[in-house]
């Protein structure tokens, strides 16, 4: 049985039976049928629940006359992403803001939750950044098709028709590579952050690890920013007019 965090144990205690049943129905045999929910999944569930409560709280307290501290923070993040999208995508970028803000908060909280004792960062497990990257990939491709219709496929064919047989596989590979690079960057940074803190904690248990925890906070924000920025750049490429 793998080591489980308290929240994972709690979820497994409640849902181990139905989850194992569901996995078996999909012809997947879990390694531990008594504990099919892993720490990464339970942490994501926790982050999801936290964000739902947080967004509901902000929604219920919205006020034009007396905006609270929480509303200021959310308006700041929203405004930042709106300005950045306008800078990169141009006008008509407002429609992408909800997705980008939600993804940003999800990744940021996933990165930061590992700093609290008793929790761990789900983004330090490769499947979670991969899930975020696949979501971003599906979203920007869908927006591309929505914007251009079937003509979006021309994006993959290169500038001249006779180049299409060469350009198509190259474009497909470069789009897959974008997903891979988003995944590896986020995963490697979060994993390395955890490892560095652990190593220094085992060497000098007092004082020094705090520096690395600080570094981990900085890296968490920076990686969230880069992930969202690159998603915006890819979105801009998918919905760009000129070709």
């Amino acid at each position, binding site marked *: 049985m793998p080591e489980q965090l308290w929240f994972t144990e709690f979820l497994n205690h409640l849902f181990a039976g139905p989850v194992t049943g569901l996995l078996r129905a999909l012809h997947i045999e879990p390694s531990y049928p008594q504990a099919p929910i892993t720490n990464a999944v339970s942490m994501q569930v926790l982050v999801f629940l936290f964000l739902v409560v947080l967004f509901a709280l902000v929604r219920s307290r919205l006020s034009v006359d007396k905006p609270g501290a929480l509303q200021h923070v959310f308006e700041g993040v929203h405004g930042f992403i709106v300005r950045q999208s306008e800078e990169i995508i141009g006008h008509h970028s407002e429609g992408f803001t909800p997705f980008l803000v939600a993804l*940003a908060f999800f990744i940021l909280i996933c990165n930061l939750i590992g700093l609290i004792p008793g929790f761990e960062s789900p983004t330090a497990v490769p499947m979670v950044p991969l899930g975020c990257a696949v979501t971003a990939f599906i979203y920007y491709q869908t927006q591309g098709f929505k914007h251009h219709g079937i003509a979006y496929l021309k994006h993959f064919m290169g500038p001249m028709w006779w180049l299409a047989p060469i350009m198509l596989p*190259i474009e497909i590979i470069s789009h897959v*590579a974008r997903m*891979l*690079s988003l995944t590896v960057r986020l995963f490697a940074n979060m994993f390395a952050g955890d490892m560095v803190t652990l190593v220094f904690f085992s060497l000098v248990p007092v004082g020094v690890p705090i520096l690395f925890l600080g570094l981990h906070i900085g890296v968490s924000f920076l990686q969230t920013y880069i992930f969202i920025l690159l998603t915006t750049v890819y979105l801009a490429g998918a919905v760009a007019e*000129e070709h």
Partner: protein
Amino acid sequence: MPSPGENPESKSVWVQIARYSQLAFIFPAATVAGWLIGEGLDRWLHTTWLYLVGLILGIVAGFVELIRMVSGSDSE
């Protein structure tokens, strides 16, 4: 998120930093992606040479993405 400040030029600097940090990743990522796709096709079609084609196309795709990023036109 690190605030880039109000001035549009400093904002562009942040965008540039993030874009150029992508340069280090995109070339190996494209190579690995090409190889993985080729390897997958090899297993699916029971061939033994598609991994090489995937690898070469991956390297080419890496160069194409690199040149696009550096020339500032990104994917388009």
